[in-house]
């Protein structure tokens, strides 16, 4: 990686221990990680290897047992209010389950975020970016799984966040719709320059990343850099 590139988000010495009755589960065992401005990182690894935990901690959904997360060099802060502020202003999330608000149309689901954002895209533009410019008025129940996930992406990026965190965004989709979703993420990353981290079980997706972090047993076991990114539609699914 280019040494001069700016670090958007970094974690140092991140440890997470869950206590489940008498058993202590070490989900993260001292992870150091940095996400550079504008890059697209793919996190792969077996279930329970710690990638979701890391993503949640980086996005301010969870707190580390030890270690620190810094956004643009500044710690996230300890209070719930500071962390909420961080999520609100700087982070977009996409999950395997789309989590759209059933009572709001596609456009309104996006507007939900743009109403509280400082310099948002218009909901229509955000939806156009993910190829749904013609489905603004549809309720979630009227959309296919792929469409719902793309609305979720539009909702995540409409506030123009610095960071987009995607946890298995294609996990519930078939390959064809999966590619459409990945293309939307790829496009957002390129056109808006949003630093993007994406968790997947599907190793063929690694090809679209700038860097690939391979997880095993609560640690980053390997970091691989791709010389060039493969467009999603050309990934061998």
């Amino acid at each position, binding site marked *: 990686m280019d040494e001069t590139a700016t670090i958007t988000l970094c974690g140092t010495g991140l440890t997470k221990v869950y206590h489940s009755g008498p058993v202590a589960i070490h989900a993260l065992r001292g992870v150091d990680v940095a996400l550079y401005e504008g890059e697209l990182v793919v996190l792969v690894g077996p279930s329970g290897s710690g990638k979701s935990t890391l993503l949640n901690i980086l996005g301010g959904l969870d707190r580390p047992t030890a270690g620190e997360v810094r956004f643009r060099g500044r710690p996230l802060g300890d209070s719930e209010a500071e962390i909420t502020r961080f999520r609100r202003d700087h982070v977009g999330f996409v999950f395997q*389950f789309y989590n759209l608000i059933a009572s709001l149309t596609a456009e309104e689901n996006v507007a*939900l975020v743009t109403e509280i954002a400082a310099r948002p895209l218009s909901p229509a533009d955000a939806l156009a970016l993910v190829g749904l410019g013609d489905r603004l008025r549809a309720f979630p129940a009227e959309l296919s799984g792929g469409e719902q996930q793309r609305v979720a992406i539009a909702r995540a990026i409409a506030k123009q966040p610095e960071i987009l965190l995607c946890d298995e965004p294609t996990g519930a989709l078939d390959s064809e719709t999966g590619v459409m979703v990945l293309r939307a993420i790829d496009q957002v990353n390129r056109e808006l320059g949003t630093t993007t981290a994406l968790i997947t079980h599907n190793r063929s997706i690694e090809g679209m990343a700038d860097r690939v972090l391979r997880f095993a047993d609560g640690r980053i076991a390997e970091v691989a850099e791709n010389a060039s990114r493969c467009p999603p539609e050309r990934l061998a699914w």
Partner: protein
Amino acid sequence: MVIAPLDRKLLRDLWRVRGQALAISLIVASGVAVLVMSMTAMQALDDSSRAYYDRARFADVFASVKRAPRRLLADIAAIDGVQMVEARIAQFALLDMPGLREPVTGRLVSIPDAAEPALNRVQLRSGRLPDPLRRDEVVVSEPFAEAHRLRPGSRFGALLNGRQRSLTVVGVGLSPEFVYAIGPGALMPDPEHFGVIWVREAVLAAAFGLDGAFNDVLLLLYPGVPAVDVLTDLDAILAPYGGIGGYDRSEQISHWFLANEIAQLQTLARILPAVFLLVAAYLTNMVLARLVYLERAEIGLLKAFGYGNGAVVWHYAKMVVVLSLIGLLLGWVIGQWLGHWMTAMYAEYFRIPELTFRLQPWVFALSAAVSVGASLIGVVSAARYAGALPPAEAMRPPQPPMFRHRLAAGRRWLAGLDQPTRIIVRQLLRRPGRSLLTSLGLGAGVGLLVVSLQWFDALDHMIEQYFERQQRQDMTLVFADPKPASVLRDVARLPGVLAVEPARSAAARFTVGHRSHREALVGLPAAARLTHLNDAAGRPVMVPPHGMLLTDMLAGKLGVVAGDRVQVQLLEGRRQRIELPVSGIFESPIGMAAYVDLDAFNRALLEPGLANMLQLVVDRAEEAVLYAALQGLAPIAGVTLKRAATDKFEETIGETMLVMVFFYLAFAGTMAFGMVYNNLRIALSERGRELATLRVLGFRPGEVSYMLFGEAGMLMVLALPLGCAFGWLLATIMAASFETELFRIPVVIEPSTYALAVVLTLMATLPSVLLVQRRLQRLDLIAVLKTRE
């Protein structure tokens, strides 16, 4: 004991939703408690009074007469259906109680010289019956004895037919005809100012010049003989001797109050528990529907394993049965206790020697059947859903709920709202039926509060209407017989009397075609200043110079409108039969009454210038002198002090009502709390995922709370006016069923009462909001978002 795995699941499910389950159980318990309380108190009154009536040989027919020779008794006994006759002398007298300046009215009742009364037997609570040879010995009624600390050996004075006598108490007793011992003109038993005195017949006969005669007669009929048949013959026999018309037990004042109380308890037992149990059924349905929806997968699994629909439905039904059983047990315990307390309270007013409180197995059976039944109604739809679910579909995740595009007008309206508010509005509109039902349920709590609190308004209104606006006098003197105008002048000259106004009342039978009613006809002077008649709206009503003014209740009973003519058979004096036109009808808080102009009345009776009642305005500073002077006045049957009556009224009602209202407040509060809590918990469960999503998107906890509580808030905003309207409706229904010939409980609900009900409901809501808010704060964002619902 081995618990089947499904039952173990049931117990754990119940534990999981324990907060909601408890709230429902408490509402069931409230309904059951009201039911058990009113039923046991009613049963205690009913059983005890029946047994007492039998034991003490309470008469079936009663009649008063001016003076009838004893030889008539043979004729009366010969009337078909008469089992037993007892003649006696009954009079009113002024009593002079040591330590009390105010005049006290005594009801003197004779007992046979050489025997115990055969009918309306006096049950001695202490002491003995008077010695026939001692003319000063009397037995006094127990509440009167208690109020004046009288015991055998105590003495007090009485004015018998104008002659001062000193009486000695030798016994304290109770009688079935004075279970509810109410003095003339009073609304409540006031043992300080009214007492019953039993005297040997010879003493009263001598004092009132009734040797060999009687002025009161009691009949016991053979079982099953209707009183009407006997009354016609009895009235015919007594009429020549000044009979004022007989009446049966249903019109006997003490029994009438008792029967009314029993009827009111029945009303209470019918209306209020129904409200509680309906709300409980609705909540059960909501909670269960949610549970079944969340357990779709488990239900599918059970079915896949081969459990039949019946087994699945029974599984959920059992849960509800457990819920209502908990409520039932709790309700039994509370209702028992309240019933016990209420019976004890009744014992203060209804003097039945053994007012016993017994556990009524049928009340328990009834409340069990009703409460479990109501809850099972709540199970039906959820259980049907669970039963109808095909196993494979049950295990698939549900589709996002469908929302419809509204009309363009709705869209424009929504366009002005931010997204969180849109979520709230759409949620409410998606299932308008459920939203409305929830609002109604929330409103039920408000309504119950309004009903409980409005009693105070109704009472204030009654006191204001009846005592303050209609009755401007301080004191009413009632004479045994009509007196000429000279008495009026005598009274006006007494010390402390500021104003006097005459009035005359006479027992009369009003007849129109086949409809008939026995009521006092009251003559008021033209432009009466001390008795103001008002209609229900508080407007003054003038007594017309000609014709008769009727209350709407009496007009309704007679089936007349203004302009119709009514046959009035006077039952006193020369028993004239006159025909009077109805010149006006007015809506009155006091049930049945008929008024005429006093002069017109006297002219019709050919007795000018007579009055048997005097209304007095009195200088309070000279009350003591006046009371003393009254003792020397021509035979006064009774004195009613308005202040004593209102004080007693407010004191008695105030204290029992406060306690009752407190309990209803507790019940209504429970209902409001349970309704809101369940509603919020279900909303949280249904919307947890959306709320977590919003948190992830960066919404602050407060903003997310808005979405959850905003919905509940809007439902509440809808519920408050609905609840107020429901309260008004409930109050109207209850007032209508409490309405009697004697009085009508006005439906008066002050704005402040509505406001208080609203505030109390909101206060009852607060704990639910705090409890749910705590859960919302602990919402595990990651867990919620990463699982499918």
